[in-house]
């Protein structure tokens, strides 16, 4: 029974990684850049919800809506101010470094506004726990919500990218930016839209992360962000189902590592998995093997 209980914990943790990884993988798949500030947008989203509920006294639904809108706008603004001017720069490194800069900027702004003290997150999602096998296995409401929400987002994103017009524009931009432009796709608008969706997802991820582990500091998003990045690479960066599977597997590996090996080296195990996967299958579980044309 403890095995099933650990498995449940792993899936619960993994589905949060999965939602964050979806944001990473979207942006990477389409804009071909690693948005290292993604984890910090999650933190911003959580702070917006917390402030809206505790300071402004808004109902949870309104707070979530405000947070999603706020993060969406934030994502568009970051892309426009920090990334777009560099997109034509000679190396991808410039954008990567800028993303790290944006990450620190967001962390320090939050530090300035909210202080370094950890804050307990309020209960936003109130779903009763489910008790199975005569109380031997208790599944928390938030776990169920997280899993359901991450599956819905994955399906919706897949549908959006494959079946809708803006989604196809995204695919086109991803395949070949210049060719897409020649075909009449507005590249800048498409990438803006990608960031908007990615950051909106970050707000949802922030809500779920802080509901499952109710503490919030300016650094809350940083480590889950890195882990989710690992999950995205693990699943094959750029692949939407890959992010989902990678996230859940990573969560399960982490929890099993803690439970059956040692709680001291849980993180080491997670990153060791990344190294092994990259050695064996450099494109990740679901990654496409793209031949470089010379």
């Amino acid at each position, binding site marked *: 029974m403890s095995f099933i209980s650990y498995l449940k*914990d792993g899936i619960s943790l993994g589905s949060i990684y999965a939602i964050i990884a979806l944001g990473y993988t979207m942006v990477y798949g389409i804009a071909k850049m690693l948005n290292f500030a993604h984890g910090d947008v999650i933190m911003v989203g959580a702070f917006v919800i917390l402030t809206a509920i505790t300071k402004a006294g808004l109902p949870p639904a309104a707070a979530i809506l405000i947070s999603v809108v706020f993060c969406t706008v934030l994502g568009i603004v970051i892309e426009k101010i920090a990334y777009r001017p560099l997109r034509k720069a000679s190396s991808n490194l410039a954008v990567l470094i800028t993303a790290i800069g944006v990450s620190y900027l967001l962390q320090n702004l939050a530090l300035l506004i909210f202080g370094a003290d*950890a804050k307990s*997150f309020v209960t936003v999602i109130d779903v009763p726990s489910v008790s199975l096998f005569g109380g031997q296995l208790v599944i928390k409401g938030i776990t169920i919500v997280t899993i359901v929400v991450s599956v819905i987002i994955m399906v919706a994103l897949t549908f959006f990218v494959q079946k809708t017009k803006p989604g196809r524009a995204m695919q086109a931009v991803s395949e070949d930016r210049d060719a897409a432009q020649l075909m009449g796709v507005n590249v800048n608008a498409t990438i803006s839209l990608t960031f908007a969706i990615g950051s909106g997802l970050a707000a949802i991820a922030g809500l779920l992360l802080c509901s499952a582990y109710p503490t919030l500091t300016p650094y809350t998003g940083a480590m889950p962000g890195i882990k989710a990045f690992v999950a995205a690479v693990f699943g094959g960066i750029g692949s939407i189902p890959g992010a989902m599977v990678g996230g859940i597997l990573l969560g399960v590996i982490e929890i099993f590592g803690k439970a059956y090996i040692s709680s*001291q080296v849980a993180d080491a195990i997670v990153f060791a998995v990344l190294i092994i996967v990259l050695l064996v299958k450099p494109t990740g579980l679901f990654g496409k093997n793209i031949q470089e044309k010379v």
Partner: protein
Amino acid sequence: MRNWKKALSVTAAVAMAATMAMPVSVFAEGDETFKIGVIGPMTGDYAQYGTNVYNAAQIAINEVNENGGFNGYQVELLAAGDDMGDPEKAVNAYNDLLDKGMQMLCGTVTSGSCIAVGAEAAESTFLFTPSATAVDSITSGSNEFRMCFTDPAQGAKSAQYIGEHGLATKVAVLYDSMADYNSGVHDSFVEAAEENGLEVVADEAYTTDNNTDYSVQLKKIADSGAELLFLPNYYSDNALILQQASEAGMDIKFFGVDGMDGILNVENFDTSLAEGAMLLTPFSATAEDEASQAFVKSYNELTGGETPNQFAADAYDVIYAMKAAADAAEITPDMANEDISAAMSEAMLSTELDGLTGKAKWTEDGECDKEPKAFVIEDGAYKEME
């Protein structure tokens, strides 16, 4: 660099002597005071620690002056030396305070700075830190003393307290293995557990980077049959641990150390979860004894409504310990720093103090030997345990 510094300080000293020669010689007789300096972070991230120490030192010195000062001489607290918690700035502040005539140092407040300043002050200026917990803070010279427990001492004292008071026999530990404070306390606790009749049935860790999900560790602890969970972590982590333990339906006692102080002030934290939790800490502003209450009131008046923390209580006790030693050593303000330092260090070994943080004596290493104090959280406030 060194020569340049020396030249500068000599020039400064000459200039100062020249400008001050006249008035000093006129007033010297009736105006002799001891000058005490405080070094600590007065601004920046740890400003709370430094300002608490400085304010409390001021309160204690005011009281001491009303009651005859040190060995009959009035005591003056120099303007605070701000090091922002940085060792290099601390050494600069130390030199600056010496130039202003500092004879004894109440500080420094943080460990890193104290190690650096301790090396400078060794066998020259009497150093008494209220709050630097790292072992090395006072190991440079025999004239360096400490008011608080060291990190390792906290772990051993916790084990002793739990054992002596029969709080549990089977204990579990959950700590941050990446932070030296947490792991230092953990190591000494585990080491001292056996001799205090405690069996460590679960020894679980997490890391600073992975400090949100404790479900697995808590489950292992629950399965181990432990009666008490020792949590040598800062309050923010402990708040989350208590929350998750409650969600998991665990019925276990919690015991923390001074880093847990502050748990009741975590924003939005449901303080009823901390009900019954115990912590080893030298001082609490809500303690009901007369001395603590009087101190809290004075602090409140001086700062316009602020509440002192344990750093303040430690600093308050430092000044009183200095007074006891100064009276016994019969030092006078015209003595050189080296002589004051030697006489004070000698007298400290026979000094006993019944202070805010407990009844204290000092060993030759400068370590404070006092009974640990524990508090239990009842009705959302600390109550001292019997």
